[in-house]
């Protein structure tokens, strides 16, 4: 009971579990602890919302950047292909 009480009032532990929960499955105990904490702690509820939002933003940022396809300098590409041809000739 003491440990349970610990998490109920412990935002450090709660935010840790919030992060863990987004990447893996929490144990039953962890789930219960987190739920109890969040019921009573509006700051950690806010943290959770923001954390989920940040993950989405990060994801979107990187995957949309990938779609945009930044271009490599044409000159560099030309030299690169020449380099490859050289290597092919060697073999």
């Amino acid at each position, binding site marked *: 009971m003491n440990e349970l009480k610990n998490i109920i009032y*412990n935002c450090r532990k709660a935010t840790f579990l919030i992060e863990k929960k987004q*990447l893996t499955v929490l144990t039953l105990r962890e789930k219960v602890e987190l739920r109890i904490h969040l019921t009573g702690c509006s700051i950690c509820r806010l943290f959770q919302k*923001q954390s989920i939002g940040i993950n989405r933003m*990060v994801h979107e940022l990187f995957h949309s950047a990938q779609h945009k396809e930044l271009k490599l300098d044409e000159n560099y*590409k030309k030299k690169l292909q020449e380099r*490859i041809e050289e290597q*092919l000739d060697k073999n």
Partner: protein
Amino acid sequence: MSSQKNQETPPTDTAITDPHHWVQNHADYLYSYAITRINEEDQARDLVQETFLAALERLDKFEGRSSERTWLTSILKNKIIDVYRKNSSGLGKKMVNLTVEEQDQDFFDPYDGHWKKSHRPEPFGIEDHDPLMNKELNSILKKCMQKLPALWLSVFTMKHIDDETTDLICAELKVTPSNFWVIIHRAKLNLRACLQKNWN
């Protein structure tokens, strides 16, 4: 590997993968892949070159089970992990050896684990609706990520962007599973605080 001096008729393995068109077909893609993860133009370019050269050396290993692009990307991926490893072998590692309590002290009260008043999250616009991903927000997010210690950023990127398994990340970057979770937690606390501070 392939035959010599027989440039007219390509050897069988290049029938599946065609190095003569690698740059044309994949260089931009690989470059974008690298630059989003490394954030350093020259280094990203070098990695693309190294990827092609490494691929040439193991042309015989390409079995056509995956597409040419997937194969090249997996080579690049390993090179990026090497960079992560190099970048994070210094300062970042030391910081992770601190106990959890020490590390989070600036966010939480060391006695009861409550948010310190000065570090409490406050709404800043990403709570209920997805914010419009505009240029400004993108650049703040990137800047905040770059502020993380190298090892944390590597762990964070591999997990959140590349969806790598925890086991693989721990093995590649030589962190223990418990440190892994400490880093994930700590990275997010810092990233969130940085966004709150710099946005608006």
